[in-house]
């Protein structure tokens, strides 16, 4: 009987061998995949095992961490002025994960990033509890406050950029939410708060980051881009020369007349006046004369049709790529399918204010270790040159006219040169919905430097539609933001 016994011995050995091989497969080959599996609760347990690093604005933390009780997760996130900063921070919830900055810089904030490896090892040796690094943002507390308070109860968004660097100074969105309310994982409080904020339960969709993720028809503010295209492509070179613009103007290939809002002097108006009075006929014809390709070229140079990563993703603003002539004309005055995020329009204003050079927008200035040693510092990057310095200055003077004596007078700041453009974008079927009030502007100091460019959009202000105009609703907010930036520089 010994021969089969030896075979059984081998068979048992093979069984053990199979187990050993499987174990190696699980714990060596697949280990990392299993460890990092998104459903593996250890991932989040570890994430919340120590206080999370903070997001810093103007040298002060806008976030914090609190020890919890009765939960797997030891620490939970807290936020100071949560609703105001939510579009900047995103949220980090034990139950619902993290988004935006909290998610993108998660490695640094939790302390698990490879760049913190040395420090972690050191902490392990010295027996210090490991902590997360910090994220230092470019934002300005004063500007953000002005933006958030300016929007108030209204629905809308503000994006402000430092034109010379691309640093984002304000990023507000209303209605907002307080990410502290669902930072934990209690089904009683956190889940309820979360559910209440979801779009399906809350038509205002407070968790939408309107400054980055919502695209609005830009309306007349887009005329700035069209004007830039006209100058860049040499359709018109002098802002004060008469243009070839009949009023009323019938769009090519149609019998539809493009109307102007109200009784304004648009026939053969100069570019400066056309911008000042916001003439649809002039800019519609400019777009149509330039043609789709040239318009598209300029729009894309300003950043249209591509997502921005600041590092939080911003939706791509849209300038249509397929359209016929009348559609080109409509697109050129910010209608048809043209749509832009507030950030995009702030970029447009910033490129003009920065003499034609568009800087890449960003909001993270530095990543630091828990004790504030810099790990990584952001360098400003040039993104492109949508228009020449000469043309940019022409456009600046046109926009300054708008604020000085056009539709944007409400944005005037004493002692500061302000250039801007209003917009009132109609939308909905047959323009049935309340229009969006837009304002984009920049401020210029005496030394010629421009510290801030800003775009404001206000959705359906509660007033009736006649009252809504970029000048009335959005411009004062833009003014406050610019003033806050200038004052804080002093």
């Amino acid at each position: 009987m010994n021969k089969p016994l030896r075979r059984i011995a081998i068979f048992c050995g093979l069984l053990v061998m199979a187990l050993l091989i499987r174990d190696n497969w699980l714990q060596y080959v697949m280990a990392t995949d299993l460890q990092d599996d998104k459903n593996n609760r250890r991932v989040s347990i570890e994430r919340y095992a120590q206080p999370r690093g903070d997001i810093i604005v103007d040298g002060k933390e806008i976030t914090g961490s609190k020890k919890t009780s009765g939960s797997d997760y030891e620490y939970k996130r807290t936020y100071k002025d949560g609703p105001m900063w939510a579009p900047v921070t995103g949220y980090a919830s034990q139950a619902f994960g993290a988004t935006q900055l909290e998610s993108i810089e998660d490695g640094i904030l939790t302390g698990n990033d490879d760049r913190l490896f040395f420090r972690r090892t050191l902490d392990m040796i010295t027996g210090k509890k490991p902590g997360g690094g910090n994220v230092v943002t470019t934002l300005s507390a004063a500007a953000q406050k002005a933006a958030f308070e300016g929007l108030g109860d209204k629905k809308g968004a503000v994006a402000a950029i430092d034109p010379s660097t691309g640093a984002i100074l304000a990023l507000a969105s209303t209605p907002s939410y307080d990410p502290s309310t669902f930072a934990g994982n209690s089904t009683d409080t956190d889940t309820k708060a979360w559910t209440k904020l979801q779009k399906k339960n809350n038509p205002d969709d407070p968790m939408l980051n309107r400054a980055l993720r919502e695209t609005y028809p830009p309306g007349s503010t887009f005329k700035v881009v069209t004007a830039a295209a006209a100058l860049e492509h040499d359709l018109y070179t002098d802002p004060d020369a008469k243009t070839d613009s009949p009023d009323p103007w019938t769009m090519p290939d149609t019998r539809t007349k493009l109307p102007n809002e109200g009784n304004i002097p648009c026939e053969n108006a100069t570019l400066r006046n056309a911008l000042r009075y916001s003439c649809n006929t002039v800019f519609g014809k400019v777009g149509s004369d330039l043609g789709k390709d040239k318009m598209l070229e300029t729009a894309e140079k300003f950043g249209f049709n591509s997502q921005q990563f600041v590092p939080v993703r911003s939706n791509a603003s849209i300038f249509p790529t397929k359209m016929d002539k009348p559609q080109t004309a409509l697109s050129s005055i910010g209608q048809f399918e043209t749509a832009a995020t507030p950030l995009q329009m702030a970029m447009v204003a910033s490129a003009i204010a920065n003499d034609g050079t568009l800087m890449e927008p960003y909001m993270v200035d530095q990543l630091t270790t828990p004790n504030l040693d810099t790990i990584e510092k952001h360098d400003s990057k040039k993104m492109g040159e949508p228009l020449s310095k000469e043309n940019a200055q022409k456009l600046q003077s046109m926009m300054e006219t708008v604020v000085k004596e056009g539709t944007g007078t409400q944005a005037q700041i004493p002692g500061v040169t302000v250039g801007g453009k209003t917009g009132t974008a109609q939308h909905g079927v047959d323009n049935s919905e309340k229009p969006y009030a837009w304002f984009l502007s920049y401020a210029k100091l005496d030394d010629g430097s421009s510290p801030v460019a800003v775009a404001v959009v206000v959705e359906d202000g509660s007033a009736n539609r006649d009252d809504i105009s970029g000048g009335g609703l959005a411009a004062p907010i833009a003014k406050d933001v610019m003033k806050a930036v200038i004052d804080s520089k002093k």
Partner: protein
Amino acid sequence: MSSTSNTSTHHTSTIGAIGAPSRRNTELALLVFAVVIPVFAYANVGLAINDQVPSGLLGYGLGLGLLAAVGHIVVRKFAPYADPLMLPLATLLNGIGLVAIWRLDQSERLQARDTFVEAAPRQLMYSAMGLALFVAVLIFLKDHRVLQRYTYISMALSLFLLLLPLVPGLGANIYGAKIWISIPGIGTIQPGEFAKIVIAVFFAGYLMVKRDALALASRRFMGLYLPRGRDLGPIIVVWAMSILILVFETDLGTSLLFFGMFVVMLYVATERTSWIVFGLLMSAAGAVGVASFEPHVQQRVQAWLDPMGEYLKSKEGLIGHSEQSAEALWAFGSGGVLGTGLGQGNSDLIGFAANSDFILATFGEELGLAGVMAILLIYGLIVERGVRTALAARDPFGKLLAVGLSGAFALQVFVVAGGVMGLIPLTGMTLPFVAYGGSSVIANWALVGILLRISDTARRPAPSPAPNPDAEMTQVVRP
């Protein structure tokens, strides 16, 4: 079979009735390790969880030491020639099993469960009972061949044990498997664990008698020896029994274990490979057949094929899905090569049965690949020592019994470890000695007791011949 050989120029050697080394001192030395390692592990868990050496360390160390000492003394006295490895290995497994169970007792997550009870003290008690049975086996079973007399009683007893859980009012359906009986005042018992041993006795006794008929009366067909129809009877009966267990008790593991054990013993008894082929075919047919209509088995297969999908379905609150398979895989993965260290993992996320069926996942996470490989190799060693005992046994009954028990042990380890690691569908079985569960620990100590008895008989030197007045050493003259 020892000889002292004289390498001198005289070509002679002297053969005498000198006893084989009993290896009891080897066993003692190994036992010291088998006690010290778990004690260190226990201290390690306490330090990791509470930052202090657990207060029960002394009691635990003494308890385990005492068990080992009693075991050792009894073996020394009643089975002096028994295999020196099995007792230390079993003690080691039992000890680290206790540590893991105690570690899971400290888990706040498990403490929050409604069904939570402190398992470690009970397991220590069960271990003591197991060792008592082990001692009883060694003391009262002077010779394993005695068991041969009880062949058919064993059959009846094993059937009785297997059918017990089906008795209305006695059987307890716990999470889908009906393999427990609950006795008021004592708790639940898993009769299948004991049936495993009893049925091995039956198979060994039966096959010893029938092996010639089964082996020789056969026709050759396509290179295989086909047994005669009537000789097929027993295997079909056992097969049918396994299927019935599977269907009525929904216990894939036990069913596989019995059938596998029978095929192994049949093969050893008859030396006919055809039985293996038949066995595999029949188990495949049986498994597929049952799986086609038994939802419980289908769920297990589903959970094996797609553990992560099952996890998500379970999280959505769908009935009949379990997140445990996925949790176990994550525990293994998170342990990596070296593990998190005892007391520092999160294997308690597995929840129900974390300290019984899934206990290997705790080792996987906290001791890592290294620890699990060590544990698997310990099981491998026990099994191979068992088969070694079968090889050394001088009587066919002993051979069959030893290989049956070792084979069953190996299959059980394979089925449960393979199930937890996702190699095969999960079945509700316990990892011998390590997992929490009284029946399992007690039955496995008895199993080791029987194996030690067989190995003692096998290695015991033949009694010295009656003293011869002319006694002189035999001189062997070599050319």
